[in-house]
């Protein structure tokens, strides 16, 4: 604000008077400016007269009221007027200095311009103060508004700065930015347009226009007109009315009308590559310079961000390129040595963890140098690229091929299940590379030598594996070229054997060297052969009979197993049919199904076809499928089994207990039998765990109504155990090994079987088992007890004792405690677990009190007797033991009988309930039928009577009641026909009753004169009822 000057404080109450005038009665506050008037209208200012001067000399003329000398000397009086541009402070100082109340002011020309009084000065100062205050208030307002705007700008700047953190231009951020800017500048519309390298609009973000409006507009700004000017000239444009600018290109249709424009370029290094523009301030005012500053600031920030984003992008791309070059071969695009090593390290860790082999292959092109030198490096490079692609096409997902350099490649094959898998891939690569490669219209032939090393056999770390693979490659190149070799000779040998085996198998197939052997399956209850399992054998002309374990896996790999399996099924079914035709007792033929067979889509059709071709009924075929096979794909397996079962075929679960199935699946798989694997059968007589498992499986099978077949039964002890525990069937060397068809036929012809043994608890055998490692003790005991009528068995060890227990019905066991290998307590514990109904006595001089008392508490020992013994006491104890045993057996027998009776009762109850339910359903059905019949009868349009054999009316429908009318009793029923029927009808009835004929459609006259047709028929032709039925229809 400018300082106050004299001219700003001129008094408004100045009265200009002539020097010769006299004061009139005027305002006390007036100041008189006295002038000397001259001719021509000129005047000279003489001085000032205040009212106080007037008051002092009221009669004097103004000239005499002036300060002395004013009228005469100086034109403007003694008091020099102050210049009107003098600072007010100076004027005040002058007044103070001269002791004046008022002073005149003169303009630059010295002419009187006014008067300043202390009051007017004060007033001016007050006014200035007010002005200042107002100004301050306004400034404050203004500042506050600015502060708010600055804050908004700060916010907007923060948002923009946040953009710097991003390396790409995010639409959302730009959107937020333009909205913030538009809000800050209070513009209705705003947009950002960023151009690409080609000058075309790459990003376009707008605010103020709805999506629908934008859709109507239908196109983006083309950059012609004013927006183009901003870009081309790289300068801002601020226009109040765009339409007035000749450079304006107008708006497309549907574009909202816009008048004012503020457009600023987004530029970098003097080149504009985008624009920010706003239009139509909300307050209707044009855009101000400060708006332009804001918008430019924003555009600059945006330019920085874009430049930053581009830099970051370029950096990222460069980094990616570097990474790529650091890890990949520039020529072929394959991983390079470094990356290969990395991957190998990772795969080795996995292989160690999962205990799975992996293969490393080293591949070198044969004679590549010659091709390179002869045809040039360009051809060589293209050849390498083509080779790389070929190799890649041979690999599985997860395999890696890398180029080490030159013509050397390394391959990593993780998770191979067998070394043959690696051989397969190597073989495929070698074969593929033999095919011609066309480079620049020229066919090139190149071969490769491959070395293979296998983790962990050929090394456990990357370097060893690579080195060994390289060595193997070298050998391959040295000896064969165009081939592959394993590092270890064993693998090479095995592979060689495999290939030989494959060839052999193919030859065997062609030459019909495969045969079937049959192993009988016996029913333990009857001892008869109830089934045969067909087992494939290979009759090698040189090697003789080859075990299936040797050739089946090879056949699986080759795929030969499918036709082989079909042949086995065909042959087995045909053989079974042949046996049936030969009138042998029908039996089931068990045939094993392989993984590959089951996976065939047509397996069910194949089985069906074979049954039809051979004529074997489906119920005589049993397909044996391993547990693990089913668990590979339970859902699919269930589907196949259901389809097979629908044919009537039996299905058994082979090798039960060796797989990893969930027991719940037993509910879902449609199987008929469980075949307990021989690993459980082997030690059932001596190992309580195997015994417990086998017993549990048998019990489970019984409860699930599945047949249980024990495989691999080789000893009588095993047989007896299985028998005692209720196993259904057995198969094993104990009865017969698998035999050729002729031998099997002989077995069937001889009706050979086994004698079913007496079961435990049948005839009570008083068999006593003496176990002591000292033979003399055993002998002494035997001598003592032999006269008591027992069958005495002796053993010198726990193991022998168990074996005897397995084959004999022992009632009482008398065992020494202190024996090598197995103590008496231990032996008796096992005996208790395996043969619970034995009575077990320890006879010992050695007292290990704890183990004995523990054994007694567990119930393993019935009594503990000391050595040396009292003969009589011992005999008594043995006798009591047998008595105890007998009681136990009797109790068990009773319990079994009670159980059997309960089961029978339960079955009977179930049956009864079933029958009652059936009957009830029948009755309900019949009642329904009866009710329906009654309803039909009631509604028939003819009168129907039923008369029983006593002549009583037992049926009369509504029409009958209407025809004859109700008698006194209220109903025709129960009345004698004679009493209620009219004579004409009675005659018909009696005619039929007499057996003379059937009345059919006879016209009769009713008592009311109407005529009717009558039918009368005796009952009993379709039911057990007796009597007659009459039907009367009244003629209209």
């Amino acid at each position: 604000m400018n300082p106050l000057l004299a001219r700003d404080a001129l008094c408004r109450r100045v009265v200009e008077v002539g020097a010769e005038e006299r004061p009139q009665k005027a305002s006390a506050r007036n100041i008189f400016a006295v002038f000397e008037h001259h001719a021509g209208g000129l005047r000279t200012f003489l001085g000032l007269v205040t009212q106080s001067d007037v008051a002092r000399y009221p009669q004097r003329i103004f000239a005499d009221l002036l300060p002395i000398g004013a009228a005469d000397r100086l034109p403007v009086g003694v008091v020099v007027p102050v210049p009107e541009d003098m600072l007010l402070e100076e004027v005040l100082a002058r007044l103070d200095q001269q002791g004046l109340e008022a002073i005149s002011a003169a303009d630059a020309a010295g002419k009187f311009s006014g008067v300043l009084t202390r009051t007017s000065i004060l007033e001016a100062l007050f006014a200035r103060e007010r002005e200042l205050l107002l100004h301050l208030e306004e400034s404050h307002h203004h500042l506050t508004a600015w502060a708010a705007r600055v804050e908004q700008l700060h916010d907007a700047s923060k948002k923009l700065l946040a953009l710097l953190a991003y390396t790409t231009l995010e639409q959302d951020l730009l959107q937020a930015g333009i909205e913030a800017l538009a809000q800050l500048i209070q513009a209705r519309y705003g947009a950002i347009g960023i151009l690409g390298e080609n000058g075309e609009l790459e990003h376009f973000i707008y605010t103020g226009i709805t999506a629908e409006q934008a859709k109507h507009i239908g196109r983006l700004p083309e950059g012609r007109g004013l927006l183009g000017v901003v870009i081309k000239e790289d300068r801002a444009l601020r226009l109040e009315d765009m339409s007035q600018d000749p450079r304006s290109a107008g708006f497309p249709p549907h574009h909202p009308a816009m008048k004012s424009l503020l457009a600023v370029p987004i530029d970098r290094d003097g080149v504009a590559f985008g624009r920010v523009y706003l239009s139509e301030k909300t307050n209707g005012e044009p855009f101000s310079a400060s708006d332009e500053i804001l918008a430019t600031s924003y555009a600059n920030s945006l330019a920085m961000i874009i430049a930053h984003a581009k830099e970051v992008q370029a950096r990222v791309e460069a980094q990616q390129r570097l990474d790529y070059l650091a890890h990949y071969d520039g020529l072929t695009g394959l991983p390079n040595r470094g990356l290969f090593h990395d991957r190998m390290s990772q795969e080795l860790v996995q292989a160690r963890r999962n205990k799975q082999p992996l293969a490393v292959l080293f591949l070198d092109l044969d004679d590549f140098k010659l091709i390179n030198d002869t045809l040039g490096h360009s051809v060589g490079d293209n050849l390498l690229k083509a080779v790389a692609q070929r190799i890649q096409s041979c690999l599985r997902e997860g395999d890696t091929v890398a180029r080490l350099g030159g013509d050397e490649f390394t391959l990593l094959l993780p998770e191979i299940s067998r070394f043959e898998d690696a051989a397969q891939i190597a073989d495929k690569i070698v074969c593929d590379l033999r095919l011609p490669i066309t480079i620049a219209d020229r066919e090139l032939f190149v071969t490769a030598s491959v070395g293979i090393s296998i983790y962990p056999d050929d090394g456990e770390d990357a370097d060893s594996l690579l080195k060994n693979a390289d060595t193997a490659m070298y050998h391959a190149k040295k000896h064969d070229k165009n081939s592959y070799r394993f590092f270890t000779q064993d693998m090479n040998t095995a592979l060689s054997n495999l290939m030989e085996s494959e060839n052999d198998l193919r030859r065997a197939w062609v030459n019909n060297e495969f045969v079937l052997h049959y192993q009988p399956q016996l029913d333990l209850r009857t001892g008869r052969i109830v089934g045969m399992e067909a087992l494939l054998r290979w009759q090698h002309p040189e090697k003789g009979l080859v075990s299936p374990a040797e050739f089946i896996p090879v056949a699986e790999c080759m795929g030969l197993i499918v036709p082989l399996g079909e042949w086995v099924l065909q042959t087995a079914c045909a053989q079974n049919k042949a046996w049936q035709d030969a009138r042998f007792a029908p039996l089931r033929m068990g045939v094993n199904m392989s993984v590959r067979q089951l996976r065939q889509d047509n397996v069910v059709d194949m089985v069906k076809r074979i049954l039809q071709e051979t004529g074997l009924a489906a119920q005589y075929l049993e397909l044996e499928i391993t547990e693990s096979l089913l668990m590979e794909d339970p859902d699919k397996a269930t589907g196949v089994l259901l389809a097979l079962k629908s044919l009537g075929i039996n299905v058994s679960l082979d090798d039960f207990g060796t797989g990893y199935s969930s027991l719940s699946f037993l509910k879902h798989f449609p199987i008929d039998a469980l075949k307990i694997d021989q690993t459980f059968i082997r030690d059932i007589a001596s190992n309580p765990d195997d015994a417990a498992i086998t017993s549990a499986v048998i019990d489970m099978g019984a409860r699930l109504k599945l047949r249980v077949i024990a495989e691999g039964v080789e000893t009588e002890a095993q047989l007896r155990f299985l028998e005692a525990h209720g196993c259904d069937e057995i198969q094993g060397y104990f009865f017969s090994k698998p035999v050729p068809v002729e031998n099997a036929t002989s077995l069937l012809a001889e009706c050979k079987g086994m004698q079913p043994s007496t079961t435990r608890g049948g005839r009570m055998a008083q068999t006593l088992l003496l176990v002591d490692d000292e033979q003399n003790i055993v002998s002494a005991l035997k001598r003592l007890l032999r006269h008591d009528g027992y069958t005495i068995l002796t053993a010198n060890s726990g193991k022998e004792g168990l074996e005897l227990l397995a084959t004999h019905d022992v009632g009482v066991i008398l065992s020494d405690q202190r024996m090598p290998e197995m103590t008496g307590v231990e032996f008796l514990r096992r005996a208790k677990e395996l043969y619970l109904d034995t009575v077990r006595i320890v006879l010992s001089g050695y007292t290990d009190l704890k183990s004995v008392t523990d054994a007694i508490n567990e119930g393993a020992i019935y009594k503990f007797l000391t050595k040396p013994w009292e003969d009589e006491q011992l005999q008594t104890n043995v006798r009591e033991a047998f008595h105890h045993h007998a009681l136990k057996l009797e109790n068990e027998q009773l319990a079994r009988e009670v159980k059997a009776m309960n089961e029978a009762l339960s079955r009977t109850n179930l049956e009864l309930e079933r029958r009652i339910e059936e009957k009830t359903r029948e009755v309900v059905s019949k009642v329904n039928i009866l009710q329906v019949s009654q309803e039909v009868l009631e509604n028939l349009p003819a009168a129907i009577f039923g008369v029983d054999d006593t002549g009583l009316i037992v049926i009369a429908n509504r029409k009958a009641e209407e025809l004859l009318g109700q008698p006194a009793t209220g109903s025709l029923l129960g009345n004698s026909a004679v009493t209620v029927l009219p004579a004409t009808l009675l005659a018909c009835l009696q005619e039929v009753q007499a057996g003379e004929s059937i009345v059919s459609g006879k016209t009769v006259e009713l008592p009311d004169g109407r005529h009717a047709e009558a039918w009368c028929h005796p009952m009993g032709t379709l039911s057990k009822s007796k009597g007659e039925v009459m039907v009367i229809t009244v003629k209209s």
Partner: protein
Amino acid sequence: MAKNVKSQKPQVRAKVREFVIPVVRDGVVLGREAPLGCVAIRRALDLLIAAPFEHIEIEDDVISDIMIRKAILRRIPRENVIDFVLKSVKPLMGAEEIMHLDLDVEIMVEYSGR
């Protein structure tokens, strides 16, 4: 008009005298508090009297100005006039008065020797 007054007759008594010109013969002495100021007196003298008058400002507590005919000042020095006024006239007037001076000035001329 009072109740017991029957009538009133205006009567005018006037003194008519000749206005003598000049009004002032030789000078005027202005009291500091006189109702007319020196400018008014001067201008009146200029208007009414052909003879020129000299204005002498006095620094005195009673007398502020003397207007004396310039011809008088040819015969009496200014200081003498002032002195005369202060010694002789001042005692006779108040500050609020304006005194009219009518002076007879005789000059005694003496020649000495040759």
